[in-house]
């Protein structure tokens, strides 16, 4: 955002009595691609650090307790560095890499100490990550912690045979974190970091969840057990409900009654995608990402939603639970209805200037 645009925003807020005085000096924030570069480098650095520690203290890794203690010490040192030098790029990168290496050691220690039970270890690791999220005041580290914690939550659900519920639950959480006034007012920047972590998890699950469903069907010699199949349908339905509810909520927020012409067209379009999502799991959560991104004014999140949609559609080609002919018919009907909705929208709301107030 340019300095002029920023000054204009400040002036608007001042006129509404929301801020006072001169605008604060600009704090430069890293764009997403610089954060990706930092994250990738942090990962690489952590791998080499782990190799160093492993080479130096190879005996230590034979004791889960010692590995756990070393991991906790590494994470503690990282938190201290984040707090002591919040503006230093080098300290921040070093702390990030040390924290990642520490987390790997903690995960290994917990895995051995808690009897290699996936659900229990994932739950314990999720708690560790939640603690790191709260203690380390670094946006990149918080996004990483939130994403990792979401992955742990998914593993807990996976272990309990409830994994299909994850996309819908996470999509609902994502919408709440990004759009709820309460979440923003209470948690501010932390809600943003958690929202990004959850967004990455939703984008990932949009494809991974569908793949796992396929895998589950393939490996099940006697078919998929009935309870798991039921959970799958509940999960798919949950994602669809979240998508339609979000669309309805957004229409209401924008001041258009859901039953007005324009509201109905928008809602119908979303309902079609939600219905298609029943046969193409992942489509509804990807669409939630796109809608939330646009509604929150985040081009990056909307872009992630578009990528997730494209990835889901590409993966759908390989899904084996429906034949290519059925998929083709489903997509042709859904696409045709969306194009009809587009035509209807142009007729119902010509010019684009009209706003139906509820």
């Amino acid at each position, binding site marked *: 955002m340019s300095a002029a645009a920023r000054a204009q925003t400040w002036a*608007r807020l001042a006129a509404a009595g929301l801020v006072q005085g001169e605008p604060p000096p600009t704090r430069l924030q890293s764009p997403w691609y610089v954060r990706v570069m930092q994250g990738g*480098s942090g990962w690489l650095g952590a791998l080499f650090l782990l190799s*160093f520690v492993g080479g130096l203290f190879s005996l230590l890794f034979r004791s889960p307790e010692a590995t756990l203690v070393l991991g906790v010490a590494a994470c503690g040192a990282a938190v201290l560095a984040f707090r002591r030098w919040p503006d230093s790029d080098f300290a921040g990168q070093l702390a990030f890499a040390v924290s990642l290496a520490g987390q790997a050691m903690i995960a290994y220690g917990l895995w051995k100490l808690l009897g290699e039970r996936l659900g229990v270890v994932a739950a314990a690791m999720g708690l560790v990550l939640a603690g790191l999220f709260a203690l380390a005041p670094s946006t990149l580290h918080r996004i990483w912690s939130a994403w990792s914690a979401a992955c742990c939550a998914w593993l807990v659900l996976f272990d309990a045979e409830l994994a299909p519920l994850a996309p819908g639950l996470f999509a609902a959480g994502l919408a709440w974190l990004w759009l709820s006034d309460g979440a923003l007012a209470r948690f501010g920047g932390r809600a943003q970091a958690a929202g990004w972590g959850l967004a990455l998890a939703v984008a990932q699950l949009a494809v991974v969840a569908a793949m796992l469903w396929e895998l589950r069907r393939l490996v099940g010699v006697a078919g998929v057990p009935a309870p798991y199949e039921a959970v799958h349908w509940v999960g798919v339905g949950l994602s669809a409900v979240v998508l339609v509810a979000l669309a309805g909520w957004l229409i209401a927020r924008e001041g258009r009654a859901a039953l007005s012409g324009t509201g109905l067209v928008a809602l119908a379009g979303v309902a079609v995608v939600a219905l298609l999502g029943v046969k193409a799991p992942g489509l509804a959560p990807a669409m939630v990402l796109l809608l939330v991104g646009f509604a929150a004014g*985040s081009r990056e999140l909307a872009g992630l939603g578009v990528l997730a949609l494209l990835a889901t559609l590409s993966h759908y*080609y390989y899904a084996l639970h429906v034949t*290519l002919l059925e998929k083709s018919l489903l997509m042709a009907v859904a696409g045709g209805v969306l*194009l009809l909705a587009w035509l209807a929208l142009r007729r119902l709301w010509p010019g*684009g200037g009209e706003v139906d107030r509820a």
Partner: protein
Amino acid sequence: MSARRDILDWAEQGRIAPHDLPRALRVGGAHPTAADWRHFVEQLLLWLGTALVAAAVVFFVAYNWDALGRFAKLGLVEALVVAALGVVAWVGLDRAAGKAALLAAAVLVGALFALVGQIYQTGADTFELFAAWGLAILPWALVGRSAPLWVLWLAIANLAVTLYYTTFGVLFGLLLGPERLLWVLFGFNTLALVAWEAVGSRADAGLAARWAPRLLAAVSGTLVTVLAIFDVVSWRGASGGGIVAWAGWLGVGYLVYREWRRDLFVLAVGVSSAIAVIVTFVGRHLVGHEAGGFLIVALVVIGLSAVGTKWLRAVAAEDDR
């Protein structure tokens, strides 16, 4: 759209009371307006609908349905191509509907070629299908002035080249190794990037959006980075030209995207590339001897990324003033 980021930053600095934050986001223009929503919904319905219909045809062709005769299948796909072109002729190429229809027609031509190969068993190699498809839609890409259509064309061309080298690589593995393919792809994508920057800078070209040249720069940068890494690790007698090309790419990229057309994304690609090649070099000479080597490499990675981040932030600050 980035008003949201500033408002949240001000709230974090304590300049906006937490309970005022939601209202500040509304007043500060962080939420889309009614006109923005209208545009978004319209674009979403149009592009998603078009993508689903085009994908449906591709899926249908791939199913190879026996119950439908060859002429019915060919007629169906051809009719859809004609219908899409009819929409283009009707609404024109300046409107989103025209661009979407032309993109759909371009995808459908690929499905048509696949169908012809499927029905008549032409014996053509896969790369020939992609090459023919790319040639057939090239005139549309030229007149379409549409970034998505050009990106589709470039993806098809990349696939055709890759499949060509994969096919002949099997026959003459020693003559056409992966390094040769990487060189060809690097040259092709870099030329495409240069052409895009030259033409896209014209305001009337309809190709002004930055996402496409950024994508090309990322592809070109990744390819030359891999070539440089091949040289660093002396992979299967690499030619040695990779390092030279990589250094040239970084130098020219710096001049172009730092001085001529400021683009932080491409500069970040350059920084990432430099980190990858330097770390490979350091790692090759230090890792494997003793544990301390790993520590040095870790510190090099962390140090380089910290310096890179600092520099990128400084460049961003110049833009911000």
